[in-house]
């Protein structure tokens, strides 16, 4: 695996100042998955180093290792030439490493100032909080960030963007040496972005090393000096921003010569199973129209937050549309609850299988029959022998590896867990199967198995909608691909013929429709 690593070693980029931070050959394993495989990454003082990669490429894991949240199974961390091992986030923080999260970690019922100084409140004698100093210092920091809100405001009353600013303010309490921004602009408006850029440049001037994680090419090219790319948990090269182009970076991200197996895709399509007509949920997505035929796999591709999962949730009765229609089998249906959805033959394999797909404390068999208890009971009483028959059937068909049906699903690997979720839905005999990120966090081998399974299901007549932010997955299984960007369908492609560039453009809002795809009739 590491045979190609030598030529891509970041330390070979010779004529540069020595890095303030070096991660060398970091390996991190989770049960059943190698999240990071000998990844090396460095940051110089006063530099913005962008870290790119598809979802699941290992960016967040790498940063969690850096911040002491995960402990690596192998590799070394050097900070200012000194070898470090962070046992917990506090140690990392003390060494001057600050992580600004996507998911926010503020205490909503406290004031802005208290949040900024959380864990390091200024005290006067008698262990009392020095409120005066607290608010004076906070105000000072907020001023540097050009924030308009007061240090006395309650965090729960702030907008998401302002909360993000509080997170950043937190990083400025100490003089940090490394600041990691993880998708910092995801929740910022265009008006607020320049402020963030100013802050980053300021930090740079003070000699702070910045790691900037983002999907947005324009930001990365605007801010960074170097760009590193991760793919499938492996380091995939570093480029100098000045010498490269968006195309080159995109190539590095997708990179692999995709061995697309178009031949194995299903080919026999029958009538429409699902049709959406201008489906809208106000403020979430708008004017979504597409169809899925029986025997067909439609891929839905887009970045996280583009509204894909929300569309699926609406079809599944978890959200109510504010406009538009859902047609099943040619009939307009109103789906008021998940129970309605299941009764109408819809199945949703959710994005987050641990939170939404499985009862982790239950055993394999019980999880498998959960959605169709009626089929294995009579007069309200379960027939455990029939449950076992059902379980055995899917366990064999999908080659689920578990020591016994009694095993709690929480103890299975991601791939096997996902198969249980899929089995659970197959047992409801659905007509439409929606899979949201079906292989997220699943190792390569199981991925291929699940892809094979999806194709097989479509061939046997299921209508399948696959939501994914992984390009090889979408290209590898879909007959057609619907691209989404910021709550709208931007294009519809033939899954066998579309180029990767076009797909990337479509999901980052750069694509101008030239085909017959539902045009984005943007009402500005």
């Amino acid at each position, binding site marked *: 695996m590491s045979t190609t690593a030598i030529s891509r070693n970041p330390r070979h980029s010779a004529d540069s100042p020595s890095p303030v931070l070096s991660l060398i050959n970091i390996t991190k394993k989770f049960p059943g998955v190698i999240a990071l495989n000998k990844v090396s990454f460095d940051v110089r003082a006063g530099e913005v180093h962008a870290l790119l990669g598809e979802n699941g490429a290992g960016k967040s894991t790498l940063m969690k290792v850096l911040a002491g949240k995960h402990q690596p199974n192998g590799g070394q961390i050097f900070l200012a030439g000194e070898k470090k091992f962070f046992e917990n986030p506090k140690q990392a923080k003390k060494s001057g490493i600050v992580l600004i999260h996507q998911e926010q970690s503020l205490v909503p019922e406290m004031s802005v100032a208290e949040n900024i100084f959380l864990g390091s409140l200024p005290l006067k004698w008698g262990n009392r909080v020095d409120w005066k100093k607290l608010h004076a210092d906070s105000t000072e920091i907020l001023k540097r960030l050009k924030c308009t809100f007061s240090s006395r405001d309650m965090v729960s009353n702030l907008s998401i963007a302002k909360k993000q600013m509080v997170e950043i303010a937190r990083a400025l309490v100490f003089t940090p040496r490394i600041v990691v921004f993880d998708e910092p602009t995801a929740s910022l408006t265009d008006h607020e972005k320049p402020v963030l850029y100013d802050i980053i440049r300021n930090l740079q001037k003070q000699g702070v090393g910045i790691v900037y994680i983002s999907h947005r090419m324009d930001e990365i090219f605007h801010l960074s000096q170097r760009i590193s790319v991760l793919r499938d948990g492996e380091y995939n090269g570093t480029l100098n921003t000045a010498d490269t182009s968006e195309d080159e970076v995109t190539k590095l991200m997708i990179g692999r010569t995709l061995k697309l197996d178009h031949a194995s895709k299903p080919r026999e399509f029958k009538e429409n199973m699902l049709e959406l007509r201008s489906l809208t949920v106000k403020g979430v997505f708008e004017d979504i129209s597409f169809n899925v035929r029986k025997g067909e796999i439609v891929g839905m591709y887009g970045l996280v937050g583009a509204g894909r999962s929300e569309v699926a949730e609406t079809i599944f009765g978890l959200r109510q549309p504010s406009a538009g229609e859902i047609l099943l089998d040619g009939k307009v249906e109103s789906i008021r609850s998940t129970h309605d959805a*299941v009764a109408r033959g819809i199945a949703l394999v959710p994005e987050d299988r641990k939170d939404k797909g499985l009862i982790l404390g239950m055993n394999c068999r019980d999880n498998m029959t959960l959605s169709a208890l009626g089929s294995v009971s009579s007069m309200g009483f379960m027939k455990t022998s029939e449950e076992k028959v059902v379980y055995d059937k899917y366990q064999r068909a999908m080659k689920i590896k578990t020591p016994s049906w009694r095993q709690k699903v929480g103890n299975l690997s991601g791939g096997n867990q996902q198969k249980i979720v899929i089995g659970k839905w197959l047992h409801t005999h659905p007509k439409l199967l929606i899979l949201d990120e079906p292989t997220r966090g699943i190792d390569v081998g199981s991925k291929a198995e699940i892809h094979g399974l999806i194709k097989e299901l479509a061939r046997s007549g299921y209508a399948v909608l696959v939501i994914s932010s992984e390009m090889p997955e979408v290209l590898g299984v879909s007959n057609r691909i619907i691209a989404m960007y910021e709550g709208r369908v931007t294009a519809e492609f033939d899954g066998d013929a579309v180029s990767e560039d076009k797909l990337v453009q479509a999901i980052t809002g750069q694509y101008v429709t030239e085909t017959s795809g539902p045009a984005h009739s943007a009402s500005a």
Partner: protein
Amino acid sequence: MNMINMKDFLKGSGFIQPIWVFVIVITVFFSFMSEYFLSIGNLGNILVQTSTIGLIALGMTFVMINGNIDLSVGAVLGLAASLSVGLQDYGITIAVIAALASGLVLGAINGLIVWKTGVNAFIVTLGAMIGVRGLIFVYTEEQSFYATNFAFSDFGAASIGPFPVLALIFLVCTLVMHLVLKKTGHGRNTFAVGGNPEAALDAGIRIGRHMMINFIIVGFFAALAGVLLATQMGAATPNLGRDYELWTITAVVLGGTKLTGGFGSITGTLGGVLAIGILRNGMNLMQVPAFYVLVILGLILISVLIIDQRLNVHASKGVSI
């Protein structure tokens, strides 16, 4: 290796639950301390004494596995007891039916509010606990009621052969509820909803209905316990059932049901109920002063939960503070 097996054994993934180990230990202990302890008469006594808390605990187990809690059971018990005695002018049958119906209705109201508003069950039933106790005072005008019909109070003391009727009722209900929890779709869904409400919802389970059914079940058992307690005493006082919600929850938690939902069993609850009953009875026989009994019970509850948590450390790994 041995350690791991021991842990599995104690965790109850084998055939015996930790609380039953505890029940056996204290049974052996008290049988040495008092020769009267193991007599049939005393064992029947323990069962009768525990049947009140025990019956409520059966319903509470369902509610808690479901991820909720019901604090109003003590008040519901009190109201049902008062109704079953106070309405005897209309005949015992009608009085008892009205009493049981009050439990069903109050349970349904609790369940409906939790389901439809999404307000935490702790708060909803805390309100119900206060409000229903108020209703008792409104209805009884702070008076105790005495049963005039002897058939009513005779029932409380009746026995079939050597077995007290109340104990038999408790054991039969226990068996039935065990089967409902283990063998029915409702039981399975109760675990699913408590274990992961989102996943249960996504699986197409109507989680609100199952919650409501469980509140009705616990309401019914609280009322049944109230009626049977009234037959034991031949009377009902307006303060009857105070603190019973706490004893019930204690018994259920001792039996291994998790406050967070998703785990638990009727067999464990039976063990928890018996543990409390045996400790009280045994210490009584040893003439431990009543106040010390409470202190010891409190200590035991906390110790058992600490041990339980230690045994389950592996399950919650990853949440390091």
